[in-house]
């Protein structure tokens, strides 16, 4: 447990010290979402129609973009070798990394998403549902992302490759996340969608660290 906390603390320290990562990811998110009114035009009804999807797609891209650097720097500077030589199960290492990643990306993304919904004329009724869906969905993005990030370690052009591997796998999160928002926007209950998101999270919590740990072991071999 103390090893787990040591990792989380280190990751947060690195993230905060390295030019406020959390804010960079956040600003990327804002910029991407802000591109849409520019790209598709300012009509409120069109924007409202696509707002749920755009907010989620933006979150997906922002979370994934930062994945590239989740394990890669450790591989490059040699600390990955030492991390793999941990005196406790590697799955916890992955979990700690995911938790830190979520704290600096998923959490801020979640907090700011209603504001972006506002920019896109989203129905105010959907805000709460958006927050809840993000709270359940963004950790899944971090977990699935960790699998992608470890799989491409040592691969060439890992940056783009990781997005390519992870994007298709995260489609269910996108679909249920958007569905929860849209259900709330038209006055239906978002609960079934949120339950499904929760189920995804419960499934990812043991599975993803296991797969990522296997990938890690083999990345240093």
């Amino acid at each position, binding site marked *: 447990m103390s090893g787990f906390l040591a990792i989380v603390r280190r990751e947060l320290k690195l993230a905060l010290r390295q030019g406020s990562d959390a804010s960079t990811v956040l600003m990327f998110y804002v910029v991407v979402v802000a591109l849409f009114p520019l790209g598709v035009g300012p009509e409120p009804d069109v924007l409202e129609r696509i707002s749920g999807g755009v907010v989620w797609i933006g979150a997906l891209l922002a979370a994934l973009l930062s994945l590239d650097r989740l394990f890669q720097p450790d591989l490059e500077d040699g600390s990955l070798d030492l991390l793999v030589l941990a005196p406790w199960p590697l799955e916890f290492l992955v979990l700690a990394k995911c938790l830190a990643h979520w704290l600096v990306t998923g959490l801020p993304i979640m907090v700011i998403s209603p504001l972006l919904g506002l920019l896109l004329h989203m129905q105010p009724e959907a805000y709460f549902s958006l927050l809840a869906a993000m709270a359940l969905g963004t950790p899944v993005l971090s977990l699935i992302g960790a*699998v992608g990030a470890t*799989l*491409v370690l*040592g*691969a*060439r*052009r*890992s940056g783009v*490759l990781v997005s*390519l*591997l992870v*994007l*298709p*796998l995260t*489609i*269910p999160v996108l*679909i*249920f996340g958007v*569905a929860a928002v*849209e259900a709330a926007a038209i006055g239906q209950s978002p609960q079934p969608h949120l339950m*499904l998101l929760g189920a*995804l999270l419960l499934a990812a919590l043991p*599975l993803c660290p296991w*797969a990522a740990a*296997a*990938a890690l072991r*083999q*990345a240093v*071999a």
Partner: protein
Amino acid sequence: MHWFANPARFMRIAETVQPWIAGLAVLCIAAGLYYGLVISPADYQQGETVRIMYVHVPAAWMSLFIYTILALASGVFLIWKHPLADIAARAAAPIGAAFTAMALITGALWGQPMWGTWWVWDARLTSVLILFFLYLGYMALVNAFDEPEHGARAGAILALVGVINVPIIKFSVDWWNTLHQPASLTRLDASAIDPAMLVPLLLMAAGFKLYFLAVLVIRMRTLLTARRIRALHMVE
């Protein structure tokens, strides 16, 4: 099973059976095409375009079938560390991707006359498209490493994670589509299929499976030889 563990023995056996499978595949496909394109009747609604079905449907079946093979081989490789399993998975992926592409393209060609558009975001079509991406991702990953073994294990883990995800994706996509859009597309009723259509369909399906086997063996042999050459190349 372990009897095949020796790649050299595999090469020898493969060499002898491979021409037979290939010949059988050609026969089946030729018969299927003849039956489907010449003998079987045109559909009263769809006209001649219905004949696309004899390529489209078996290709779509193959896309799922090969992904299953890929995942199975990956599992065998991860659990029993069987070298040929990796080679098989690696060899199967591009064939699967090609069949998936074929299903997509023939579907699009069919969609133009039938639905008046090349593509709709129907649940079934969307899941095939995502399956195609999974294939491409797998292939990109497996080939992105210097050490073939590294690529093999990474690919195997991805294939297994993918196979858990395929039903989830399929389920979510189905559901997504029914949420957004009521099914308004006319489809052939699969149960009421005419034997005159069923025969070429089954012939083609068998032909495609045999073709897959034949190409798989060729590709496995090529991959084995390529590794050998690579090893020789490493000599100073």
